[in-house]
């Protein structure tokens, strides 16, 4: 829905987590597309699109919204309230070894000292979180990445202590079992840990209702460094994945339950979304179904070049989508939409206007 002063349309940019997306399924490698898109749109997207491990790019016209919160927003249960800054609490899994702890605390102290981020403090879980990766073989599998955690309560207890100390956004670092995945490192297949990362952040956002993002911690015994695929490099050039998480969270919008009736005119609601951009074969998420089911649904742009391990196109789900071949075409379609041009008309084989 256009508000009078809006010079650009509002777009949700989705790349589902843990489904082996050829663009965006690695180390924040959809970020260049969001950077370009944000020139012609206000963008709402999720952490795995923007988190490049040690690489990041803060953008004024992009809102960084964790997946559970994004689903609630799409269902119009929560509104998004942009902020100037958040007070970040850092929760660390007590299972990390002393080297992992030191690397992550150095990132937190550096982000406060060098970037000026408002980090209110850090704390540890009382017990190991206990990540279990589900059916993990290797990333060449055609299954999406899933997993569970053994002790959700210790995560929640630690997070609540940080909130009581003044945090209104949470960065969480959980220790993961060692994963050797040469296919992923070569830019192929499914991120083996992404699915359980989403479970961790969903649990915290669902329970606490504040922005949250997760960075995994992996023990490293490596004594050599090898070259990896360019899409994965952001995850191997530093000791942690935390810098991009802290930057993203620092200005992530707060969640406001729509039912509480205290919404500000500048809060974003589901009705404000003009377009959705999604991989063409991964349209079965809760958020896109909720938006597509609205009486005045946003235009869905289904991008064919972004292949995933899923085969869930929009049409059998009843989602009316405009298929586009590439993200370049999708960005053009958004620009056209903002200019008042029907993107479907920008083709040689344009249809006749029908008699109704």
């Amino acid at each position, binding site marked *: 829905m256009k508000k009078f002063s809006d010079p650009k349309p509002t777009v949700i940019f989705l790349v589902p987590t843990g489904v082996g997306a050829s663009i965006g399924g690695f180390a924040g490698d959809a970020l260049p597309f969001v950077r370009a898109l944000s020139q012609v749109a206000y963008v709402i997207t999720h952490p795995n699109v923007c988190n490049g491990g040690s690489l990041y790019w803060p953008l004024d016209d992009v809102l960084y919204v964790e997946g559970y919160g994004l689903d609630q927003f799409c269902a119009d249960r929560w509104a998004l309230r942009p902020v100037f800054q958040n007070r970040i609490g850092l929760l660390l899994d007590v299972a990390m070894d002393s080297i992992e702890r030191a690397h992550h605390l150095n990132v937190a102290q550096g982000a406060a000292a060098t970037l000026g981020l408002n980090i209110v403090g850090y704390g540890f879980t009382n017990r190991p979180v206990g990540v279990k990766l589900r059916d993990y073989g290797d990333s060449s599998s055609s299954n999406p990445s*899933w997993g569970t955690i053994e002790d959700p309560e210790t995560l929640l207890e630690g997070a609540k202590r940080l909130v009581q100390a003044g945090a209104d956004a949470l960065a969480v670092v959980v220790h993961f079992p060692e994963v050797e995945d040469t296919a992923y490192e070569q830019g192929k297949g499914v991120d083996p840990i992404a699915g359980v990362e989403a479970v961790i952040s969903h*649990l915290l956002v669902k329970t606490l209702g504040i922005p949250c993002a997760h960075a995994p911690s992996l023990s490293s015994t490596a004594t050599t460094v090898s070259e990896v695929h360019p899409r994965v490099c952001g995850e191997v050039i530093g000791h942690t994945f935390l810098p991009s998480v802290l930057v993203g969270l620092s200005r992530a919008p707060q969640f406001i339950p729509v039912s509480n009736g205290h919404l500000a005119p500048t809060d974003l609601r589901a009705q404000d979304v003009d377009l959705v951009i999604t991989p063409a074969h991964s349209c*079965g*998420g*809760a958020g896109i179904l909720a938006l597509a*089911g609205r009486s005045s649904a946003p235009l869905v742009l289904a991008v064919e070049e972004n292949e995933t391990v*899923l085969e869930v196109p929009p049409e059998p*789900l*009843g989602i009316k989508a405009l298929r586009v071949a590439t993200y370049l075409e999708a960005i053009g379609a958004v620009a056209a939409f903002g200019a008042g041009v029907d993107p479907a008309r920008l083709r040689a084989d344009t249809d006749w206007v029908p008699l109704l």
Partner: protein
Amino acid sequence: MRTHFVEMDITLAATPAQLLEAVERAFQERLDGQGEVLRWAITALNINQGQGPSTATVQAVMLML
């Protein structure tokens, strides 16, 4: 409190809103008040040409209380 992975098949509906309702109803039946859904997605479609209903495979992680 623990997290639990589940997979189930849902009959496809005519509209996204009806499909979403069907998924949420299936979760309620499966959970029976004993937990909440943390994350889910349709991960496969089983399109039947003529015989039987077409279905969607839904995978989810639930928080069991």
